């Protein structure tokens, strides 16, 4: 009874020790293997589809790269110089600046307003929140169809034209009219409809983080009116949320492409061309990858600079979150 057990015991007793002497590696080596097995796919992907393209694009920006990505003519900073002095590129930056100057504060104020309204609702709160949030699911392309083909259709059957028709105003061709530039109204309202709910949700989360007893304390101290509590409690305590929203809005405005492409295409696309749309046309319309890449690195530089400056201004990072 005991002998087979013993024999079984003795055999593995000697073997694994010898085996482990040959096979066992330091624990740190096994850890490194596990680390790279899990980290590897993402690291490899980022290498191939982020770092190599960025380096390649950066190199291309110093070459004459018309219709080729293996250029031979080194031109130094010429592409950058050309882009900086390119009238259309400058115009696209001006377009962005005008667009951002309007859309960032407007979206900020309206989404905060919606969040305050929803937060104060005493019935159907969930319903209202869902309604304002739902457009986030819609693409710029689908929304552009509604805005361009129906709401702001230049013909008399467009909804806006019917509305102003009630007041005896003649139909306006919203998209095609350059003077006054009514197309801005179309571009701005479509973005507001699509974005407001998204930022409202962020503000709502911020509002719900504010401790209730602060408001009760304010009531006791006699801060009765809604404006006083907003001015002295709500808004200061939303500081971190506000900074996040401002940065997100600015980056989103920088990357504007879809609604400009869809609403202005086929007509006066050149009247308002954000940087991304211009770079798209340079790179894929004219197949000029040298200038296209130079432009996109300039743009990246501007975005990074803007975010850093904005962060400094509002003291991002030193926050007490």
């Amino acid at each position: 009874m005991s002998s087979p057990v013993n024999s079984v015991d003795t055999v593995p007793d000697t073997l694994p020790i010898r085996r482990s002497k040959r096979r066992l590696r330091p624990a740190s080596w096994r850890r490194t293997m596990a680390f790279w097995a899990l980290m590897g796919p993402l690291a490899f992907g980022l290498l191939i589809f982020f770092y190599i393209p960025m380096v390649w694009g950066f190199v291309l920006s110093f070459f004459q790269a018309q219709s080729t990505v293996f250029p031979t003519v080194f031109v130094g900073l010429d592409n950058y110089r050309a882009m900086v002095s390119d009238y259309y590129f400058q115009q696209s930056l001006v377009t962005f600046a005008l667009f951002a100057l309007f859309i960032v504060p407007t979206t900020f104020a309206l989404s905060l307003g919606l969040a305050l309204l929803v937060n104060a609702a005493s019935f159907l709160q969930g319903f209202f929140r869902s309604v304002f949030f739902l457009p986030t699911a819609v693409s710029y392309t689908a929304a552009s169809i509604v805005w361009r083909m129906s709401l702001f259709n230049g013909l008399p059957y467009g909804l806006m034209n019917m509305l102003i028709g009630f007041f005896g105003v003649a139909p306006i061709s919203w998209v095609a009219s350059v003077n006054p530039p009514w197309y801005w109204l179309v571009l701005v309202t479509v973005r507001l409809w699509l974005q407001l709910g998204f930022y409202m949700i962020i503000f709502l989360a911020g509002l719900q983080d504010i401790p209730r007893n602060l408001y009760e304390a304010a009531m006791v101290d006699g801060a009765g009116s809604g404006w006083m509590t907003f001015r002295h409690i709500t808004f200061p305590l939303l500081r971190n949320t506000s900074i996040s929203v401002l940065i997100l809005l600015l980056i989103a405005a920088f990357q504007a492409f879809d609604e400009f492409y869809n609403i202005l295409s086929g007509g006066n696309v050149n009247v308002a061309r954000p940087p991304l749309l211009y770079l798209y046309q340079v790179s894929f319309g004219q197949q000029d990858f040298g200038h296209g890449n130079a432009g996109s690195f300039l743009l990246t530089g501007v975005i990074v600079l803007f975010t850093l400056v904005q962060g400094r201004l509002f003291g991002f990072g030193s926050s007490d979150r």
Partner: protein
Amino acid sequence: MDAMREQQRQFLREIAEEDRIRKSQHMQVLRLIFIHLGLIVSALLFLLPFYIIVRNALMTQPEMTAFNWSWWAKQTQWENLTTLFTDPSAPMGSGLLNSAIIATMETVGQLLFASMAGFALARIPTRWNQAAFFLVVLTLMVPGAVTFIPKYIIVSQLGWVSTLQGIIVPDLFSGFACFLFRQMYLNFPQELEDAGRVDGLGYFGLYWRLSLPNSIPLFIALGVISFIGSWNGLLWPLVIGQDPSSWTVQVVLSTFITAQTIDLPELFMGAAVSILPLVILFLFLQRYIVEGVVHSGIQG
């Protein structure tokens, strides 16, 4: 005499107090009315475009472009749906299929690779962690859309222009999602990991059996955000999908706004069909989406 005057004063004070409360209650009611009025008006404005899409999608062209506004089609034109899908010039069917494949694969891939890497960065200490984390964070500095020209170069060299993998593969790797997963796994209780080790789990077991099931809300939140993003994306599919066979539903729609050769109700039906899956997803998963938005908002 003094006592009576005092009593009288007390009484007057109480009346004044009651009056003040009643007034503030009136104010309160008025405030609530205004708030709800504002909410209802805004809600109607927000719902208007949805209504327009459905109304136009179910009308005939003459009815839609008539000068007299009608709220609904005299006869609901469900045929517009068949017209849309049988139109040889608008590859709507393949567009929907492409979009579904692209959005699903991008979502699954992003979540898988990002959560694996996030786990490795947070829970497997090696001398590579800091360097790898730095490389991930560096990608967050550059807004995604700006990289489309350099990314196109690589895709064209791989011979992937006008293919689905050309659209999908470069977008499988999300530094942002990895960052969020890392933060999440850093806060994972050490006791749970120790318990897992006692049960004989290695690093893969800890990832697959413990960390993953415990971060399902983050998976759903990021997953829905990523799905919406890739379903609705236009610029990248537009750059890569140069042949109609690789067009996504957004590219199809965008092409037909510009082409203007299509029936208007057909175009609106296309918009309706493209929105419907996401609206359904939205209504079912709203709680998680809100969470995802808050996560991505906090990232800044």
